[in-house]
């Protein structure tokens, strides 16, 4: 069914990360990640606890997308950025509420919750974090 081309269980599993920016922290080496994984990608430890990550950060690198994967056509051009949060955790996310030409490395950003993928007229609306320039 066309309405379900976006995996519903996959989105549902990722809700803590996508809605609340809940990630994982390795209790042995301290590495932070989002989404949370069972095994620390840095030291291989299985002692990974859930942590809520800060909502603010800055843009490290970014790219403007003109040829998007299926489901993002309507939003082009948009910006994907590598964001470093205040605690040093890195993640990739879309930027929103910004003119792609105004994005700069080092730009201060904050997390917002927006529609990221929508499965047609009848399917799931997947909300997830995006980042926008810090409100004054």
């Amino acid at each position: 069914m066309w309405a379900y081309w976006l995996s519903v269980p996959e989105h549902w599993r990722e809700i803590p990360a996508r809605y609340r920016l809940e990630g994982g922290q390795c209790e042995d080496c301290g590495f932070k990640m989002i989404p949370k994984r069972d095994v620390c990608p840095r030291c291989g430890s299985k002692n990974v606890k859930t942590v809520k990550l800060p909502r603010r950060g800055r843009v490290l690198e970014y790219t403007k997308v003109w040829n998007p994967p299926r489901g993002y056509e309507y939003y082009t051009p948009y910006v994907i950025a590598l964001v470093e949060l205040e605690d040093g955790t890195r993640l990739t996310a879309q930027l929103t509420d910004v003119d792609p030409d105004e994005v700069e490395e080092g730009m201060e950003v904050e997390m917002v919750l927006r529609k990221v993928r929508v499965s047609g007229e009848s399917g799931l609306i997947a909300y997830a974090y995006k980042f926008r320039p810090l409100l004054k």
Partner: protein
Amino acid sequence: MKPSREVGIVGWGVYVPQWRITSEELARGWGREWKRYAAGIMVEEKSLPGLDEDTFTIAYEASVNALKRARIDPAKIRAVYVGTESKPYAVKTTASILVEALGAGGDARMTTGADYEFACKAGTEAIQTSIGLIGSGMIDYALVVGADTAQGAPGDALEYTASAGGAAFVLGPSSESVAVIKASLSHVTDTPDFWRRQHERYPAHTRSFTGEPAYFKHIMAAAKALMEEVGTTPDDYDYAIFHQPNGKFPLRVGQRLGFTPDKIKPGLITPYIGNTYSGSALVGLSAVLDQAEPGSKILMVSFGSGAGSDAFHIEVTDKVVEVRDLAPKVMDYVNRKRYVDYSTYARYRRMIKMLHDFSSY
């Protein structure tokens, strides 16, 4: 109507998308002369949602702002209600997504959650329900949102006002409140002035019939009945907020009730952002809380087509001053703006579609 335990507003917050289109540009899209056609409604420009925004995303940011001012753990919230007439899903409550995003009801999510519907008064209706729950002692805190991405049909008069935005309130015991809701009552009749049938994209309305027998009759009846019950007159209030379908009606209904324009203008936000429907009166209330002195008395009367009005007598407490600057104010969002032309507006409102668009909504 007064609860046995006094209830008040513990925190308030708003959100308005940054996108704006001027009334002049909307008129240009249809070859009309703005001055002759639309200037009378006194709405200079209106907000519209971005491509990735909807009632939920508006409700979410308004709620985050309300929680910043309430300074409570979201786990303590045991009721989440969203009043809207532009639900992202026809069946699946916006409240369910909001509960999860905020962590209401604690890790076990022990909270009630529902969407409310009564055209533009859905949000104030949810406030009354929450007063019942908190006032009876069933719960201590509730989160109420009035938010919309309102629909105005292309070329219709409503296209000049139907906008996007919302306000959220954390309600709780009066001892912790920035403003105490002393009394509230409602007036409802079957007055078909505006509606939207199932599966229709845009609402139908009855033009001038939406004024006298609908907006004016219901607001005036509810306001008068509430003032009589509380024993107040218009002179006792420092601020009056009426539902704001345009910039003209709230001033006119206020004048007929005996409120001077200087009591209405601080909460009159529609001229800058348009009519946010379920958010309309509540964004106005937020703008008043952004500036009101402790001890101020506020009369708020919403209006929902169909039709009905909810009236509230609210008294501001000393706590308002200490939490005011903890989140962005109404005017911060009003002044954060980027203009679009009619073609971008048509794209953002999904009035026109891309040939190969797999994300259409």
